[in-house]
């Protein structure tokens, strides 16, 4: 069992960060971010060809994190691999000491940098969750017995601000039924909306050991917030935060975004809204320690 799962199952308010591997072999910044964060958080997500843009591999970086004493949440999309390759990678990841997997369908290739690639989607997120569960129970998708099962903590995502929300909620429930043990949400900014969503989610997960971590993307400018409102489906930055971001000079915007993020973490923890947070600084991971300090988490 990895320390992310241990923390979650102990009832602690868990905190994870995120590492986006670089495009290429220049890994100094990434290694620095891992060093900086690995002991400060319970786990570090590693993205898998994020936004369908080719990157250094999620499994290799996850393995590195584990080998230097951190805990990795191995993100896995079904976009680039069929069921043979997915299960092969799951066994390989397990061999390398990785114990958490976040199951995603993955952004469509048309939004990435290899637009003519053939997307796979042999499985999608719900089926990948099922496949990991099966492997944890000792068999592959086809029903063949494994020589030694895997032991993954199975993660999934949900978009609380999805519009319309009903089909999204239905899928969330299916992911739980399929075997998801923890959720990291798409970025949330409107804490009232999120508390409403959590009220519903707590109802669904009652009696089940399913943890839900709020996804928090640190705002670094008012432009970024407006961009997300316009172009990122399922992300909604409310007017009061747009105003707050706009109230400070440009050079202080990141600091303001960090304050907002820390304030949200505190609120979520103090009101026991959810089971933890997943903090995404999207390439600026060096600001995460200060956010955690502001939030009284370290």
């Amino acid at each position, binding site marked *: 069992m990895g320390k992310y799962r241990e923390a979650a199952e102990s009832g602690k308010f868990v905190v994870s960060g995120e590492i986006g591997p670089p495009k290429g072999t220049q890994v100094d910044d990434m290694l620095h971010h891992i060093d900086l964060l690995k002991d400060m958080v319970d786990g570090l997500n590693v993205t898998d060809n994020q936004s369908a843009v080719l990157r250094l591999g999620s499994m290799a970086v996850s393995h590195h994190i584990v080998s230097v004493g951190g805990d990795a949440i191995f993100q896995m999309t079904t*976009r680039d691999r069929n*069921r043979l390759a997915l299960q092969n990678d799951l066994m390989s990841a397990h061999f390398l000491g990785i114990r958490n997997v976040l199951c995603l*369908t993955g*952004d*469509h290739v*048309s*939004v990435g940098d290899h637009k003519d690639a053939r*997307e796979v*989607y*042999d*499985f*999608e*997120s*719900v*089926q990948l969750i*099922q496949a990991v569960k099966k492997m944890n129970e000792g068999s592959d998708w086809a029903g063949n017995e494994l020589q030694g099962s895997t032991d993954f903590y199975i993660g999934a*995502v949900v*978009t609380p601000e*999805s*519009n*319309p929300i*009903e*089909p*999204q909620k*239905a*899928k969330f*429930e*299916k992911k739980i*039924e*399929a075997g998801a043990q923890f959720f990291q949400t*798409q970025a949330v900014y409107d804490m009232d909306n999120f508390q409403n969503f959590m009220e519903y989610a707590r109802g669904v997960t009652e009696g089940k050991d399913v943890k839900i971590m709020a996804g928090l993307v640190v705002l670094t400018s008012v432009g970024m917030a407006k961009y997300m409102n316009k172009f990122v*489906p*399922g992300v909604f930055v409310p007017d009061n935060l747009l105003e707050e971001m706009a109230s400070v000079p440009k050079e202080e915007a990141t600091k303001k975004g960090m304050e907002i993020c820390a304030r949200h973490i505190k609120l979520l923890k103090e009101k026991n809204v959810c089971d933890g947070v997943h903090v995404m600084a999207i390439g600026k991971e060096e600001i995460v320690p200060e956010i955690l300090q502001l939030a009284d988490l370290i």
Partner: protein
Amino acid sequence: MIISQQKPFEEILEALGDQEKVYLVGCGECATMTESGGENEIVDMKTRLEAAGKTVLGNDVAHATCHELDMKRIFRQSKDAAKETDAFIVFSCGAGTQSVREATDKHVIPGTNTLFLGNVKRNLQYEEKCSLCGECVLDEYGSICPVTRCAKGILNGPCGGTNNGQCEVDPDKPCAWVLIHNQLKKEDRIEQFMKIQGPKRWNAVERPGRLDARDKDEEKGAA
């Protein structure tokens, strides 16, 4: 029907290269409807090729170009032209082009790109709703096919890219999952939405597909 679109004229000329004598083949079915290879398009193509210095020895619009025996019969009837031509240019779907392939040993050039199996929304407006997966699951989804109409072919509900009921991949297209959800609600079958669906059996039809519908023994008929 099969939706096809004429290739750019320059591409056709490039494929011909130095070859001078050509034979045009159109299709009386789908390519006529889509105006990519009907009578009018073949006459128009003949004019353009002649203006580009080519000699058009023959032009036929077959009843259905995908019918291989028909194609052989047509070329038997215009034996001299078919024999003398340097190349055939086919304005039908890719299946039709390969029917022509079966009927001649000459250079055969596709004059169209074959796009999809389409429904006709209005005259000359088409939408893909079926991708010929070989194992119809429509009833599971209120007869709205997620394999085809969800950009990711997801079988268990919308992804995070659903955007006010539209698809993130192409905002002009509706999110199939919102359509399916609404439809199942209308049918009072929303519980169907909650059913976890396994992945497709992608080899339900072994590719390339083959069916002998004259053979009533199913096992032997489809392979």
